[in-house]
């Protein structure tokens, strides 16, 4: 599974569009991902149709030179009833995909783009687990407080740090209600070429923006063995994620803050 994923990686959407041979190759790789990642492991999820370069995921890729669209709002739905206790596949997938591989003696100083949180209900002792990451708020406090505008929200709702202007003041980390952000505490050399990250800058989940722009799903969604995560366009009523949010009760974490998050949970 990871092999077919890596094969597809170096391709940019632009080239996929202009070069028919490559396009066909990506389609094949994409179907491979679909086959292994979804049809086999999570038969309940079938949000894709086969045929286009991006058909495996149902994610519309943009033409080269085309900016992210305001019409789209990317989101995630996590069904925590399916999230297996002790499983950290999403965490491993994320940190492999994004090259978060450095070792630190103090885990509190290490970058954690996504983490598994174990909840125990104080009333009845019921235990649940869920993955926690940047919630990609529509009204992100990190973007409000950033002095240089490095903390930003892309048109399609993905909250990112522009490390070219991040000065490492950590005000966003003070402002984030989800503890989603990490400061890179040491010099790095092992970055993934598609995921630049470095010392002294703040970082967090990018929703695998480099994959989304290629028509792929975020690594955590793709690698979840339980199929507990659904990725898609919250603005498109016909998307799988929108249909599920419409049909079931979902929760926005810290909904009291009215941040209108892009990551929803089902079953809290």
């Amino acid at each position, binding site marked *: 599974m*990871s092999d077919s994923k*890596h094969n597809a990686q*170096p391709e*940019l*959407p*632009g*080239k996929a*569009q202009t070069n028919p041979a490559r396009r066909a190759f990506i389609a094949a790789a994409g179907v491979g991902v679909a086959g292994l990642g979804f049809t086999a492991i999570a038969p309940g999820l079938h949000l894709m149709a086969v045929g286009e370069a991006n058909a495996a995921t149902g994610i519309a890729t*943009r*033409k*080269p*030179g*085309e*900016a*992210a669209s305001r019409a789209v709002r990317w989101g995630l739905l996590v069904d925590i009833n399916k999230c297996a206790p002790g499983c*950290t596949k999403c*965490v*491993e997938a994320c*940190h*492999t995909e994004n*090259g*978060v*591989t*450095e*070792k*630190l*003696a103090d*885990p509190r100083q*290490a*970058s*954690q783009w996504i983490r598994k949180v174990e909840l125990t209900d104080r009333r009845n002792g019921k235990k649940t687990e869920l993955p926690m990451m940047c919630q990609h708020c529509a009204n992100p406090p990190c973007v409000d407080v950033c002095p240089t505008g490095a903390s*930003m929200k*892309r*048109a*399609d709702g993905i909250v*990112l740090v*522009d*490390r*070219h202007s991040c000065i490492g003041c950590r005000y966003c980390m003070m402002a984030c209600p989800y503890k989603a952000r990490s400061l890179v505490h040491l*010099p*790095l050399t*092992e*970055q*993934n*070429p*598609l995921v*630049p*990250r*470095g*010392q002294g*800058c703040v970082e967090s989940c990018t929703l695998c*923006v480099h994959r989304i*722009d*290629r028509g792929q799903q975020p690594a955590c969604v793709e690698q979840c063995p339980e199929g507990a995560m659904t990725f898609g366009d919250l603005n498109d009523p016909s998307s799988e994620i929108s249909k599920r949010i419409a049909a079931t009760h979902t929760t926005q974490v810290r909904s009291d803050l009215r941040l209108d998050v892009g990551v929803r949970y089902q079953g809290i």
Partner: protein
Amino acid sequence: MFLSIAALSAPTFAGDGSRTPKPVIEIDTPGKCIAPADEMRRNHMEMLKHQRNLTMREGVRGEPASLNECISCHASKKTGSVHQEGEFCQSCHAYAAVKLDCFECHQPRANFKTSASKPGIKP
């Protein structure tokens, strides 16, 4: 800002580099660049800066100017990198005395694959 200083100073210094050794420019993967060499020498920083803002902030992908594309052609065959001593980016920047901080965040090696491992905890 630093980049524009480079644009002004690089051609000036290139003329009389008697004391400083000239930069090594070996291109192991010959082929056509996205613009003539003269233009690349003068404007590559502006191209990259323009593209970085477009890609990072607006999500524009697949444009010709791309740091990863630079690296994939210009990386040394031996090390796969552009950033170590004597390699494509580094040697010219050292010659022009312009700080190169792209690679504090960007990966200077072509086709580099990160290892899969559990982060955060010391082995």
